[in-house]
C-alpha cells in the first residue's frame, strides 16, 4: 500500500495524516517548465500550482495515496478541483480552515472541520485515527519543529543555501529523520565564511523552492537573518499543545501561528510581525520574494512596503517564476546590497 499523502500548503494538518498511518510530504514545484498542466491552467496562474499539477500529470507523484489541499487562495481551490477530476480514484481532500482567525467561532469551526477531515481519512482508507496516535504524531512533529527552530537559532553559522536545503528537505522527509539539530544539519558543513558578512536581510514570500536567490546571497556575502515563508519559519514558529484534546490543540496552533496572506487576524498583523522580525534580528533590509501571479502576496505587498517605508527600512521586490533568472536577479540583489552597505 502506498504510504505517503501529499500536501501543498502547511495549513494542512500533518499530524492527522501521520496519525492515520501515512507520511505527509510537501509537494514542491520542480525546476522543469510545465507542459501538461498548461492544458488545465492559464499561464497567469502561479508556478507553484502549474508545476505541482504538471508533476502529477506526468506521473511523478504516482507514489502518493492521496493529496490534501488547504483552503487558502483561489488558485489552490481551483487546483483541488482539477486534481479531483484528473485523478478520480485518488483521495483528494480540501481542509477548509477559517479565513478570519480572530473570529470567536474560528476555533469551534476549525475543530469541526478537522474532525470531518479525520472521518474522511478513516472512511477512505479504512483506518482508525486514535487519540493516542494523534498525541504521538503531535509529539513527533513538535520535535521536528523544535529541531528546525534550533537550527534556525544558529543560522548565522550556515550559508543561505544550507538554510534552504535544510528547510526544503525537512518537509519531504519522515519527521523522525529530523529530530535534532545535528540531523537537521547533517551533511551540512558550517559555512564559517558566512559569519564575516555584514549585511542581514529578511526574506518574505509564499514559498522558496529553488536556490538561485540563496546562492546569490551567499555569493555576495549577505545573510538571511529571518524569513517569512510557508516552507520557512512560518512552518515551525508555533508548536501544538501536547495536553488536552489533540484536535482542539491542532486547531489552536493553526489559529495562532504566523499568518499567511490568505488568512486574517488583524489589519496590521503581518506588518507588525515583519517589523518585529527586522528589529529583533537587526536586519538591514527586506527582500520580498514573490511568485508571479500570486495574488495574496501581491495584495499584501503595498501595506507591508508602506510599513517598512515608515520605519525607513529599505526593501526590494523580486518577482520570480519557477526559477529566478540568475543575471536579472543578481543585479537587483547586488544593487540592493550596495545600497544597504555604507559608502
Amino acid at each position: 500500500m502506498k504510504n505517503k499523502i501529499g500536501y501543498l500548503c502547511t495549513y494542512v494538518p500533518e499530524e492527522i495524516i501521520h496519525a492515520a498511518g501515512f507520511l505527509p510530504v510537501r509537494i514542491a514545484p520542480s525546476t522543469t517548465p510545465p507542459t501538461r498542466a498548461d492544458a488545465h491552467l492559464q499561464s497567469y496562474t502561479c508556478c507553484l500550482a502549474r508545476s505541482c499539477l504538471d508533476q502529477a500529470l506526468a506521473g511523478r507523484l504516482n507514489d502518493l495515496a492521496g493529496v490534501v489541499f488547504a483552503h487558502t487562495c483561489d488558485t489552490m481551490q481551483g487546483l483541488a478541483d482539477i486534481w479531483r477530476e484528473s485523478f478520480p480514484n485518488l483521495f483528494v481532500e480540501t481542509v477548509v480552515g477559517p479565513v478570519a482567525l480572530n473570529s470567536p467561532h474560528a476555533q469551534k469551526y476549525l475543530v469541526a472541520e478537522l474532525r470531518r477531515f479525520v472521518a474522511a481519512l478513516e472512511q477512505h482508507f479504512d483506518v482508525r485515527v486514535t487519540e493516542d496516535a494523534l498525541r504521538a504524531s503531535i509529539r513527533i512533529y513538535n520535535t521536528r519543529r523544535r529541531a528546525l527552530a534550533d537550527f534556525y537559532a544558529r543560522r548565522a553559522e550556515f550559508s543561505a543555501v544550507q538554510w534552504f536545503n535544510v528547510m526544503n528537505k525537512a518537509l519531504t522527509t519522515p519527521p523522525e529523520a529530523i529530530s535534532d539539530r545535528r540531523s537537521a544539519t547533517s551533511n551540512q558543513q558550517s559555512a564559517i565564511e558566512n559569519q564575516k558578512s555584514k549585511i542581514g536581510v529578511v526574506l518574505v514570500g509564499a514559498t522558496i523552492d529553488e536556490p538561485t536567490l540563496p546562492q546569490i546571497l551567499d555569493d555576495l556575502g549577505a545573510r538571511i537573518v529571518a524569513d517569512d515563508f510557508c516552507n520557512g519559519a512560518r512552518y515551525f514558529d508555533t508548536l501544538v499543545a501536547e495536553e488536552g484534546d489533540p484536535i482542539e490543540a491542532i486547531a489552536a496552533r493553526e489559529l495562532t501561528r504566523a499568518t499567511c496572506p490568505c488568512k486574517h487576524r488583524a489589519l496590521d498583523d503581518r506588518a507588525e510581525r515583519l517589523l518585529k522580525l527586522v528589529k529583533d534580528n537587526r536586519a538591514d533590509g527586506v527582500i520580498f520574494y514573490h511568485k508571479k501571479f500570486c495574488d495574496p502576496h501581491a495584495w499584501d505587498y503595498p501595506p507591508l512596503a508602506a510599513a517598512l517605508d515608515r520605519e525607513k527600512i529599505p526593501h526590494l521586490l523580486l518577482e520570480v517564476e519557477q526559477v529566478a533568472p540568475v543575471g536579472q536577479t543578481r543585479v537587483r540583489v547586488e544593487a540592493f546590497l550596495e545600497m544597504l552597505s555604507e559608502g
Partner: protein
Amino acid sequence: MPQEFWRWKEYNWHAPDIAWRNAKIITAGVDVGSVSTQAVVMVDGKLFAYANRRTGSSSPDSARRAMDCALEETDLALDKIHYVVGTGYGRVNVPFAHKTMTEIACHARGANFLYGASVRTVLDMGGQDCKAIKIDAQGKVVNFLMNDKCAAGTGRGLEVIADLLQVPIEEMGELSLRVEKEPEPVSSTCVVFAKSEALGLLRKGWKKNDVLAAYSRAMAHRVAALLKRIGIEKEFVITGGIAKNSGIVTRLEKELGIVARKPDFDTQIAGAVGAALIAKKMKDER
C-alpha cells in the same frame, strides 16, 4: 553591404590638456552592457579619455577593445591605471578590473558627476533594460526599480525598429516628432510583437514617421509607469543610449509633466564614469 540602420557610431575621445604623468591617481570604469561597452579613464577625478563600442559576444574582449580604443590616441598604458571598476551585465568578466559594482550604483554616481549634485531621479535607459533610480546629493542609490526581464522599451528594441523601418537609429527621434497628429501608441512594447504590429501599420499605409511615433509613445508610456511607481523627485535626468532619442525623451516628459535636464555630454558613458569615480573612492580608502 546593405546599410545597417541600427548601427550607431563607435568613437573615442580624450582630453588634450591633461598631463597624466603628474597625476596622484588614475582610475577607470568599464561598463560592459548588453548592447554597448564604454571605457572611461579619469585622472585625479577628471575625465581624461573614453570610448564607446558595441558589445561583442565575449565580455572580456569587449572590455579590452573599449579600453584599447579609449587609450588609443593617448600615451597612457593600461598598466599605469591604478584602479579599475567593472560594471554592467558583463561586470564580472572585465579581466583587468579590481572590483565590480552594479550599473545601478554606477549610473547613480555618474549622473551625480555629469549632471550635478541636485539630481534626485535618474532614468537609465539601456540596451536591454531600464532602471529608475533615486539618489541622494552624493550620488548614492536611495531606491531603484528595474523593468521586467523582456527587452521592451530598450535600446535593442529601437535597433530592431530602426532596421525594420530602414531609418538610421540616430535620426529616429527627430523623425518620430515630425508627425501631423500624434498617433495612438502601439499596444505592445514586446520587441517581437511590436515589430509585427509596426509591420501591420506599414501595410495599412502608415508613414514611417507615424509608425515611429506610435512606437516611441508606447516606449515612453512604459518607462513612465516605472518612474511613477518609484516617484519622481527633481532634478530628473536620463542616462544611457536612449537619452539621445528626442522622440522618446519628449514624449516621456510630456507624460510625466516634468522636464529632464538636457545633457552636454554623451549619456551613454554615465555608467562607466560612475565606475571610474567609485574606483577612485575605493583606491582613496585603501
